């Protein structure tokens, strides 16, 4: 009887261990291949210019970063690609400078065929702690199916990790007895 139980425990442990490792691997693969990032920076949520916010991170009023406005498929270097609300974002874009922002002219200004970025980030506060709020993540919309995928991945991972552990303690012969409640 003990042998059958051990066998079952071993199977449970191995099965869910393989499932967990496979899930981890799949998620990491999705990240490394860029798929996760492409789902995240999916479409533009407003009209403006798609940019790589990293390029202008160190801009200042005295040393602004100049981006050339061009229509192309990919943000490579100091470029700003015009987008309308709902357009798919160009590759490598991670933020959108909105037309409203450019009209206000405080953080970025259009000059002919270029955009001059002078204030790339601001200090914001959440839960009593300060953080840098940049152009990154602004004006972008993620793929809603990616949201569902996130949740599915996390729940499946949680379940399989929980069952690996259950299989492990069963295999080790660690006795888990149900607590009898009722004061």
């Amino acid at each position: 009887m003990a042998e059958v139980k051990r066998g079952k425990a071993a199977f449970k442990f191995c099965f869910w261990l393989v499932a967990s490792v496979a899930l981890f691997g799949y998620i990491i693969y999705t990240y490394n291949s860029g798929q996760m990032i492409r789902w995240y920076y999916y479409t533009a949520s407003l009209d403006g210019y798609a940019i790589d916010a990293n390029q202008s991170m160190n801009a200042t009023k005295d040393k602004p970063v100049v981006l050339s406005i061009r229509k192309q498929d990919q943000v490579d270097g100091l470029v700003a690609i015009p987008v309308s609300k709902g357009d798919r974002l160009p590759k490598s874009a991670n933020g959108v400078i909105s037309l409203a922002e450019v009209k206000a002219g405080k953080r970025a200004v259009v000059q002919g065929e270029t955009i001059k970025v002078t204030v790339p980030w601001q200090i914001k506060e959440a839960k009593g702690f300060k953080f840098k709020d940049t152009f990154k993540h602004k004006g972008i919309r993620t793929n809603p199916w990616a949201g569902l995928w996130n949740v599915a991945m996390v729940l499946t991972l949680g379940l399989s990790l929980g069952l690996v552990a259950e299989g492990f303690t069963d295999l080790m012969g660690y006795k888990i007895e149900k607590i009898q409640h009722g004061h």
Partner: protein
Amino acid sequence: MFDFAIAGVQAPIFLLVLVGLTVGIVGGFIGVGGGYMVTPALIVFGFPGYMASGIDMTHIAGKGLVSTVRHRQLGNIDWTLALSMIAGTMLGVELGVRLLVYFKHLGISGVVLLVTSVAVMFTLFLYTQFETSRAHKKMEEMEKAGEKLGRELQTSSLPTYFQALPLAPIVNCRTARVIVSMWVIVLVGMVTGVLAGFLGVGGGFIRVPALVYVVGASTHIAVGTDLVEIVVSGAYGALRHSIEGNVDLMAVLFMITGAMIGAQVGSIATSYVRGPAIRYILSYSLILATLGAALRLIYVLTGQNVEWLSLAAVVLTLGEMIFLCLFISSLVWFAVRRRAGKWVPDWVAPLVV
């Protein structure tokens, strides 16, 4: 250091795993999501404020499920109670989020949030600490008198009142051995949900005391059952946050790596202690979280100028996580020693099994 392409920060992997581990231990033991510790920690690590909440909620869903699987095995989940609460909880969270948005339009949400957090957590701390000390004293007297101690002892008279309310339908929670009106359960879910949605946390540290002191469930059942709610509300929160673009799944992954061990340790640790021990840890987490929130409130109110306040809040937030894990581990260690017949401090003896 790992380059998080989605969050747009570089953060140390070790710290993310450590946070997952410590919050996993605490969460598995007292039935909380741990968001009130994790979100500030993530902001300090460099994640933008909006992503800190999203990453936290998503990791809570996964970690909560790990704990739930173990608590199910331990017999700490009353499914009747859990499922009855879900609708109330979800509605409550939605209302709480709308309340938050309303206050945001008035432009005073940051301070209002911190003040509400401090008030709620401090009140819960006072009641929980007071009741648990009374229960602890009673258990010490019972042990001295040679009486056998059960797994739970609770000295509040609130559950008797709520269980007597004759509002149909009346529900029989078999595992918890509680018979109570469905409306009481739904009310608990709704009130805790509103607070959770408004304060932006999982709600465990409100729901566990509510389950114990209002519904009258034992602490172990409250912990296990609450974790089910946390998985559901965490998954819903994770979905909403993901669609808003607030989730970096790689950060979640690193945290779950720590949480998968932590959640096991915390959940299994509950089988080494009696109810009041869990309530003590819950009250400690409440007072430390209150202190952390109070420090941040003072920092914000003084115009964010007094830098050492911010530093103190960071150290307190991190220290709180480590403290709770050390205390929980101590309780297990003392339990093992007592089972082996070795010496343990007098105050520990009635708390462990």
